[in-house]
């Protein structure tokens, strides 16, 4: 596979080139967490359980019937290896035990009951491998009355308290689906922190992240403000035209129906520029101090700006805002980052020639390292694509034994 979008900057070293990670996950969120480790060069073995993995992959492929391929799986599982194995069969369980003897970290999102039933709970493994980093993603955390609720981001988002206050008053609550992304990064952070500790002390440990924690982390500032300040204004939506600061965190509609977003929190700094743009006198006595703009004249300034922005189309406003170096922009749709040279240049979006899909675009890498940049080394593997190779390289199985395991259906080897 070629990363043909740009000459990729950064060195070619693999930051995590010395790590072996077992990925015993089924959810997108935890797949993205191990995806970070794979993008930075860890050998991540995706252990796909037979026969369930076949159906799971078919479901993922058909999730968008019009697309007909698993583009979320492509994002989560790129750079990983696939080992398809029947863990119920004795030789399959033995393979997993063999891998667990070698692995630096295990990442899973299986329910607790299932891990216990298979002898894969932390306490089952830590005796033989006190240096193992054992990470688990869940819906609601390892403790508390709801620790065994399923890991569905919708359930966690509903609990977090942001859904009712995101929309305009009277509109339905809003689900943003960002929870899995915060959670994925948190889990990867926890794994690396634990690996750091292990390198210093030789001791592994359990790591946990949950969708509830991820959603709460994303809501940090509103949540903390509510905890300290209380108040109804944190519990219901605020109308767009009731903004606390008419110049910051506000959307105004342009003549073509598109939206302009202003973020100028320190209004003293930005007011002369904005007043010029709006055709107002910066010394207009209604608006000549921060206190007036955000206090007595707040609603009047909102009305004036609402009227001003309705006079011209968004593209003209964008040109004006940029020319005056104001902190504002036009609300864009996904077509913008899909084509944006800045997103491509920084490899946040990649264009590549996929071996089975042809030319595609995909999300790239949100973290840049100068000497060991993330790379697209291989696309998401087919089911069992590396089974034979991994058994040979990691466990030293001879060819005949591998053929026998494939013939008996214990492994699938693409």
């Amino acid at each position, binding site marked *: 596979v070629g990363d043909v979008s740009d000459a990729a900057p950064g060195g070619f070293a693999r930051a995590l080139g010395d790590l072996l990670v077992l990925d015993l996950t089924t959810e997108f969120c935890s797949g993205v967490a191990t995806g*970070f480790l794979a993008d930075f060069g860890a050998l991540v073995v995706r252990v796909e359980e037979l026969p369930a993995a076949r159906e799971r992959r078919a479901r993922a492929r058909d999730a968008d019937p019009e697309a007909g391929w698993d583009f979320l799986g492509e994002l989560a599982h790129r750079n990983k290896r696939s080992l398809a194995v029947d863990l119920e069969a004795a030789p399959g369980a033995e393979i997993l035990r063999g891998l667990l003897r070698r692995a630096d970290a295990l990442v899973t999102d299986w329910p607790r009951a299932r891990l216990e039933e298979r002898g894969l709970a932390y306490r089952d493994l830590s005796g033989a491998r006190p240096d193992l980093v054992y990470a688990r993603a869940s819906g609601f955390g390892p403790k508390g009355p709801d620790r065994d609720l399923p890991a569905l981001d919708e359930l966690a988002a*509903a*609990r977090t308290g942001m859904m009712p206050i*995101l929309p305009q008053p009277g509109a339905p609550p809003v689900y943003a689906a960002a929870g899995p992304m915060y959670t994925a990064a948190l889990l990867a*952070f926890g794994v690396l922190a634990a690996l750091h500790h292990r390198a210093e002390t030789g001791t592994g440990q359990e790591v946990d992240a949950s969708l509830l924690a991820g959603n709460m982390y994303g809501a940090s500032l509103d949540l903390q403000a509510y905890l300290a300040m209380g108040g109804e*204004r944190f519990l219901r939506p605020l109308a767009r035209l009731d903004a606390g600061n008419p110049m910051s965190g506000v959307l105004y509609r342009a003549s073509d129906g598109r939206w302009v977003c202003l973020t100028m929190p320190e209004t003293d700094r930005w007011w002369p520029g904005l007043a010029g743009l709006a055709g107002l006198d910066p010394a207009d006595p209604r608006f000549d101090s921060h206190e007036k703009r955000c206090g007595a004249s707040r609603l009047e300034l909102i009305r004036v700006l609402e009227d001003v922005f309705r006079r011209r189309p968004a593209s003209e406003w964008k040109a004006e805002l940029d020319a005056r170096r104001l902190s504002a922009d036009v609300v864009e749709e996904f077509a913008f980052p899909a084509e944006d040279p*800045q997103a491509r240049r920084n490899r946040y979006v990649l264009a590549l020639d996929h071996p089975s899909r042809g030319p595609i675009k995909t999300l790239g890498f949100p973290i840049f*390292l100068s000497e060991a940049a993330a790379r697209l080394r291989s696309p998401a593997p087919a089911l069992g694509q590396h089974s034979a190779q991994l058994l040979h390289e990691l466990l030293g199985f001879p060819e005949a034994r591998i053929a026998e395991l494939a013939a008996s259906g214990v492994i699938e080897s693409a």
Partner: protein
Amino acid sequence: MTPDRPKGDAAARALAGIRVVDLTVWFQGPVAAQLLADFGAEVIKVERPQGGDPGRGVRSIRALPVGDWNQYFLVINRNKKSVALDLKKPGGRAIMDRLVERSDVFLSNLGAESLAAWDLGYERLCRLNPRLVYATTTGYGPFGNVDKPSFDMTVQALTGLMARLGEPGEPPIYLGMGSGDACGGLLAALGILLALHHRRRTGRGQRVDASLYGAQLFLAAPWLQGYLATGSDRYSKQRSRKTPERPLRNTFPTRDGWLFLCMGEDDESWSRVCGAVGDVDLEKEALFQGAEQRRRHAQQLVERLDAILARRTASEWMERFEPYGVLASPIRTLADLARDPQAWANEYLLETWCEEVRRWVAIRGFPVGLGATPGRVDSLGPELGEQTELVLLETLGYSWDEIGAFKEERAIP
């Protein structure tokens, strides 16, 4: 026989021994250092002597006064030390250089011009300390030519995520105060750990960046990846809850508030929902036979369920759902979350002593758990320059005479 779980040392910290120079302001940069500090890194926050981090000056949020303790600054900067340093003075620069020489990580979210003006660019600092991990959180990424102000919501506006959310015709939706900053800061912290791991193997540091733009594109992945793959409006445009793609995974109003129903598209899920709402006719209706039909007639299905679910309260429905295995949650408020036992049991919320008001206060806790080396809050954010002398004396090895000379020069207060 089940072996005993290895006993963690209660005092052990995962990131003990890592020293971070934290030259950041507001939220995205400071929260990256806060995550490191929560797990034991020694974070030294360098601030200008006049006023320090502008986050100290936050007076109102959502047009409400912040009250008697500035939670905005104090929670984001918990577990840190503060050194007040005037980088415009030669003495301030000398102190900064020594700090860089003796640290593992340099973290900044100041603009490239400010860093250049103080001669704190990557090239020079990595010559000063080749083991240094030099981390930045920028607005639009380290490459390319976009150079404009980058506040959270404006960058979120560019990603397409805001335009995707909400009912058709409604204004775009911002994910909440600092939602993108939180992601960028977390990715910067993750990048720092990646670089520290690499350093262990090579002996050398490197440059790390996580931008607000990159982080927010990543946040949008569940929809944006679909758009990149298909180019379809189904991913980029607002979609009404009245015509959902998956009608049984949808929000519904009840008599007293909203519910999020989280069921699959299969017949079994459908049968459970019909059983739980007690409507036998609904289950038999020809329009709704099979997943394909239900998807095609999603609008009618949502109308029917809207009418039915409006008859009872959310908690009545939750009771009725349980025996049928119907997954759902009432859509809660921040007030509900603040007393949610699940959040407290996992230390996603906790209480800590606030010296400023001399009482226990509720704060957001640790969004990730480490079993043997759990996160800890030893102190809320420091006073401006609280540890200036201590750090100069103990960490940097300056004598009292030298410290006196720095004061005279006004390099430190």
